[in-house]
């Protein structure tokens, strides 16, 4: 059982982020796209934080965020987008979907680990 879910189609990013967060004492699960992320969330109620890419095959990260709120009716999980995107429109869509925060890649773990720990609780 995990308290953080890392969703990214890039195995390099997935492993890098998961490895860093595990090193910081978090329990981390991973998913390869939005569909996989929704499936993992359905089966693991301990997940408190989702760190997701935007551009992914099958289901993008923003659509996944919208479905977490609308289909899973999960209003409590914190969603952070970790992406190369930084356009205001994308961020607005994220905010509307209940995304809590936005990180523009590359991932720099030390810059965000304390915030992540607070979000995990």
């Amino acid at each position, binding site marked *: 059982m995990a308290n953080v879910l890392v969703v990214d189609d890039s195995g390099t990013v997935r492993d890098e982020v998961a490895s860093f967060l595990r090193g910081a004492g978090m329990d981390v699960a991973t998913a390869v796209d939005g569909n996989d992320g929704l499936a993992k969330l359905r089966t693991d109620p301990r997940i408190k934080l989702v760190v997701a890419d935007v*551009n992914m095959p099958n289901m993008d990260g923003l659509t996944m965020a919208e479905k977490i709120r609308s289909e899973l009716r999960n209003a409590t999980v914190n969603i952070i987008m970790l992406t190369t995107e*930084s356009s205001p429109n994308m961020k607005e869509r994220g905010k509307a979907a209940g995304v809590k925060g936005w990180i523009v*890649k590359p991932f720099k773990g030390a810059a965000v680990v304390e915030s992540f720990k607070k979000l995990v609780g």
Partner: protein
Amino acid sequence: MNQKPVSKILVLDKSSVHNRTIKEFCDANGLVPLKARKSTVMAVLRTNIDLGGILYSDDFGDTPEETVQLALDIHAARPELPIFMRCDSQSSQTGLENKLDQIICATYLADGMEKLRDAINRYIFCVMYPNALLRGISEITTSVLTNQFQNLTVTVDTPYIVRDRVIFGELFSLIPLESAWCRGFMMLQAEATPLMAMANGRSAIPAQPTFREVNDLLGEITNLIWGAFKNRYIGDNQASLSRVVQVPIIVNHNHRYISFGSENPQLCFHLRLTDQVTGSCFSIYERFIFNLSWSPDDFMEIPQEVNQLIASGELELF
């Protein structure tokens, strides 16, 4: 860095007298000359993947027949490369034009370099690239590669224009570029073995990486460059309705050839990643192919509000 693109051009001309003229012409017109002998022409064509064109002379062969045959062979091997032929006289210019008119894009006389300049501008430097774009791509790519590979020094050559369609290395990535001012693709090319060796222990992928992990690394590098390109030059601008237009991309593995359905020259950046301790080095070629739409007059950099800037890697809480 000089922001005016250059182009590598193969010089097949035996005239020692004219060679100096060609050298001066190349220096003055953004061309990087590469010489080859008759016996090495085909090998040079096979190994140089980033040529813009060929300067050919009408006496390059030992006989007129050999000159014609060699030109035909060159064209058969690399039909995408424009051939500019220097003729000894107006009469031979006309005579060879008849025999080679299907494959020679322009002829010129030794004392008529203006005609060659016009042809070079028409066939190689026919697409204008904004300086801000060239500078920005270099900055973005260098930054991404520096972040991805620890302890490697990244250098980038002056951007250059290529006409060939030959694929470098065994590994390449493609990602679409869609905006109101450009439509096409960005392509990264690399040799798998050196990339795998240099990534080992210096990047985010595991030690002793498999080919799939190296594929993934190139994919993420592509993604990071693409994202930074979009944030800097595209923003929320939507491409016009013509974005529904697409053309097939053809890859011929046997000939290591990729066609985007357009004869347009491509913009190429050659990145070198060097380990300063061991001296070992590998290359990544980055090409921009604006085959679907190109409107440099509409090019713009997305202005960033200083108070809205969040450094990459930092969390922006909503």
